[in-house]
């Protein structure tokens, strides 16, 4: 085994709690297990602090009304209870941690009528960012496929209108128009989470692109003209919501 492969084992042991507890890791005796465990717990708290502060920044801005700072969950027993199964960067762990934040902040009651929508939006951002980085290419095949983890959010309030205002100085909680909004949340090839408004064409393509339909099939199923489909696919590929399957 190369030194690089040994380093990968150490990194995995720190990131992946079930692996850290396995005979496959422990049997190698590469490092003091107690110190590895302590450092892994430290890393987990740091890892999710960074993500909570970033993805729940709007709820942080509302904390002076709610009294609930999202990152406070990192010092609560429920977070400690996740640590024996946590996999840093894993989607299930992201979902679990984001769920703790949502429950904790929501308990304080709504700081604004749109607060439930806001929490769903922030949770979606954090979950979409997680998951394996398996492909860095938009693909070259003929069958578009919605990238795993891409989410369509249907909201009661038009959140994009209010989000920038929440991060500016305010005395009264900024208001959001009560009108339905559909947002697409995806992760780009470079790991950044992108959000775009989803019109009917976008929503249809994201729901129908399964990697088996040709462009003609997809255009027919989504009720789009070829030029409309091409433009939609270009936008979706750029934000990482769709890639082209190379087939089997």
């Amino acid at each position, binding site marked *: 085994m190369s030194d*690089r492969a040994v*380093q*990968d084992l150490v990194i*995995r042991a720190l990131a992946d709690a079930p692996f850290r507890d396995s005979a496959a890791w422990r049997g190698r005796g590469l490092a003091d297990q107690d*110190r590895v465990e*302590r450092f892994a717990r430290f*890393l987990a708290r740091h890892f999710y602090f960074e993500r909570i502060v970033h993805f729940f920044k709007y709820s942080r801005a509302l904390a002076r009304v709610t009294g609930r700072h999202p990152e406070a969950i990192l010092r609560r027993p429920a977070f400690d209870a996740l640590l024996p199964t946590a996999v840093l960067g894993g989607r299930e762990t992201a979902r679990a941690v984001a769920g703790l934040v949502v429950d904790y902040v929501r308990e304080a009651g709504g700081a604004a009528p749109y607060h439930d929508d806001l929490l769903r939006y922030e949770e979606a951002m954090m979950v979409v960012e997680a998951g394996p980085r398996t492909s860095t290419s938009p693909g070259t095949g003929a069958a578009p496929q919605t990238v795993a983890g891409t989410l369509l959010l249907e909201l009661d309030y038009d959140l994009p209108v209010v989000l*920038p205002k929440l*991060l500016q100085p305010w005395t009264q909680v900024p208001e959001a128009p009560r009108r339905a909004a559909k947002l697409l949340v995806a992760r780009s090839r470079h790991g950044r989470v992108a959000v775009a408004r989803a019109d009917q064409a976008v929503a249809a393509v994201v729901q129908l692109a399964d990697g088996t339909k040709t462009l003609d099939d997809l255009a027919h199923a989504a009720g789009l003209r070829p030029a409309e489909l091409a433009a939609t696919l270009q936008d979706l590929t750029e934000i990482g919501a769709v890639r082209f399957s190379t087939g089997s």
Partner: protein
Amino acid sequence: MSRLMVGAFYNPHLGAELVRAEGIDHLAMADPPAPSDTHWPAIKQRYTLLLHDYLGQLSEPLDDRAIARARSLAALYDTPWVAEHFQCLHTEDGTYNLNYVFPPLYTEEFLARFVANAAALQARLDQPLVMENIPGFFDVKASQMPEPVWLRRFFEATGAGFLLDLPHVWLEAHYRGLSPDTWLAEFPLEHVVELHVAGVEQDGDLRGPWIAPTEPSDAMLEFLAQAASRCPRARAVTFDAFSPSLTAEVLLASVDRIRAAL
């Protein structure tokens, strides 16, 4: 030793205070300025800026995109040098990423990797490269040589500068049961271009001290003064704190106390 610049990290949430601050010679940039950062133009105009972003881990070659980003940031900041870390924090296939600085194994294989990849990066940069030491909380039995020996061989092979993070040395000494001075003496101080200093606090998970966005203790500042006197090529000392919880009071007081200690 020429006069040392004394500075801190640019913390965007403290932008208003930093625009007005006195007694800060430079700011290290851990992240690019956000488009919404209204203080950035004044910060850029006023300060010497040091590129200290995550460019990539030099256990692997940086790809063209990463190098283009490094060059673009270096030009934006007009940085006198470009900093990276002796780190290997994600697996080669990208599946696991610690998102926190973590040292490589101190082996011949990793030395060859870091030397080759640093040399390739240096060839594409218009500024000198400096590399920062990263603390280990535990030893990995696969390592083949002490960290200071590995670092010395790296600097001699590449001609890169040394960004000496003193709290990292201090923490390693603590967890090895050594005196910080004894451990520091092993490091290649003749290559140091910049020093980092920071506060440490007790961490509940580690059950011991670790870096924290607090003021450096008097003992740490004394350690800094001793270290700086042994680094003949050092040009800057930076208060190494970058956190949303850092306050302007802590940052400004720390810079003042660092300057007073030197």
